[in-house]
């Protein structure tokens, strides 16, 4: 069993001026060498928690330890242990990608020569060579995020705190980032805390995940165990081309259990019932009204909703 790289105990963060309780008694343990995720919709308190982990915000109450150091008492220590990627506007927008990565390495204590050499390697590793000499301000949104990830990885740190590192990235760039994170964990035992509201990302790269909702942790386990604990239900998604044919008995039965979003119905059913319902729909008259359908095993989004998650803005792409 590994020791805890990050321990969070009863952390509460309130913003009295705005009347916001951003974190509400959060307890977490992140093990050394794991890729740990914070999953939740916008406004769940993920970024607030990460900013406290890196010492940029102070908890209203509670305790945070990083690799045995009390970060609430000594927030400046976090800068020595953590490579942080925030969501805010980069400070070095006018500099070219390579210079940004090298400057970050330099500011993390590397010599000028070592920082420049590592920047070249990182730019290459993350597939940014073509834009290495282009200022951040002249990159597309996805390229900018990609470059910021490269900057965060400059000069090795035992802890990586990445707040939505793949937001806005195309699928190829996203996989490059995931691979870079995995390499650091596998080769150097780096611990990674990754904020996401993307279900696919959570299921693809996380060893364990904490699901946050309205400032609280509503579940924390491996993605597989969380989904297995949900039940044997599967998810049937139906997209109607026209008005659903309510006269069809199968459609009428599904309508009673469906979560409706426009012309899309989502119905959670035991696997046998779902299979039978889909069989009847695709062979009967209702099929003419169907535009699309999918039958899927539960996702972390289903876990989130089953646990009472109140928002529905998790990404699925």
């Amino acid at each position, binding site marked *: 069993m590994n020791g805890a790289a990050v*321990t969070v105990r009863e952390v509460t963060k309130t913003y009295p001026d705005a009347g916001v309780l951003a974190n509400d008694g959060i307890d977490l343990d992140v*093990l050394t060498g794991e890729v740990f995720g914070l999953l939740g919709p916008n406004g769940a308190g993920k970024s607030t928690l990460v900013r406290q982990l890196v010492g*940029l915000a102070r908890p209203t109450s509670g305790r945070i330890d990083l690799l*045995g150091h009390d970060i609430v008492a000594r927030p400046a220590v976090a800068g*020595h242990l953590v490579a942080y990627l925030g969501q805010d506007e980069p400070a070095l927008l*006018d500099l070219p990608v390579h210079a940004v990565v090298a400057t970050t390495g*330099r500011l*993390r204590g590397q010599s000028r020569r070592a920082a420049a050499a590592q920047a070249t390697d990182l730019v290459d590793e993350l597939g940014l060579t073509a834009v290495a000499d282009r200022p951040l301000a002249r990159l597309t949104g996805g390229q900018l995020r990609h470059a910021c990830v490269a900057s965060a990885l400059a000069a090795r740190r035992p802890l990586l705190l990445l707040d939505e590192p793949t937001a806005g990235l195309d699928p190829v760039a996203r996989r490059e980032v995931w691979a870079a994170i995995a390499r650091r964990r596998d080769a150097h035992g780096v611990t990674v805390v990754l904020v996401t509201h993307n279900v696919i990302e959570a299921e693809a790269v996380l060893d364990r995940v904490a699901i946050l909702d309205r400032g609280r942790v509503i579940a924390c*386990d491996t993605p597989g165990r969380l989904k297995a604990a949900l039940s044997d239900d599967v998810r049937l998604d139906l997209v109607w081309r026209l008005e659903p044919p309510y006269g069809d008995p199968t459609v009428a039965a599904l309508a009673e259990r469906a979560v409706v979003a426009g012309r899309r119905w989502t119905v959670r059913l035991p696997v046998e019932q779902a299979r039978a319902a889909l069989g009847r729909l695709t062979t009967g008259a209702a099929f003419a009204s169907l535009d699309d359908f999918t039958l899927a095993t539960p996702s972390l989004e289903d876990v989130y909703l089953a646990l009472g998650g109140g928002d529905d803005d998790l990404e699925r792409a």
Partner: protein
Amino acid sequence: MTDTSVRAPAVAAAVGGRTSWWATADAVYRLALARGRIARGPLLFVATLQSVGILVLLRGVVRHPDLATSAAVVAGGSVLVVAFVALNLLAQRFGAMRASRSLDYFAALPVPASAVVMGTAASYATFTVPGALVTAVTGAAMFGLPFGQLWLVVPAVVASGVALSGVGAALGLSLPRVELATVAGQLGMTAVLFLGLIPAGHLPLVARGLRQAVPSTYAVDVLAAGLRGSATPGGVLWRVAASLAYGAVTLAIATRAFRRAVAG
């Protein structure tokens, strides 16, 4: 909430050393300089044109100015270039960084806050050297002043740059909105304009007291003495020292404001 019982590490991980003050200031200086090459060229041109324009205006208005008045006007105009950049633009820059929370980038690194403030301020001050030099040379030629001690523009720019950039940084980091930082920087520049350009002897008594409180006054006086051809080593040294002392205090205030801006 967790499914895994864990133990904290028996021994806390070793913490690496903080990046040295000079390495941080050097890196921040270089990156701000690189940024400035792109963004500040046109602004510096405007700042220089503004100062030279004021000198042309005053030269046209005053037919036969005496030596002391001419030297004060040219010195004040040269230092005004520094005020425009180190006070006005720097207040805006730090105000914008605060508003966009891009200060977090530095705050999450193991670097001294004072080196970040100083490196940024120094790069802004560096950009003022050519503009101040152009203004001083143009002004000396227009007003028929001696060129012998014109090299004093360099210590005058350094001294006023340190003193004013501390004020500019503190304004940008302290005020809650970037618009307020812009207004405050502009007001500060106006104070430098009037209290720097108008010879001390022409000011009412109250304004003379205010003049001594403006951080750049000592640099203006160094350059004015040089333009009169009457600067002495002792006079230059104590005035530059006064400017640097002023700068040390304002940069300390700016560093404190940096920490508060991040924590807020």
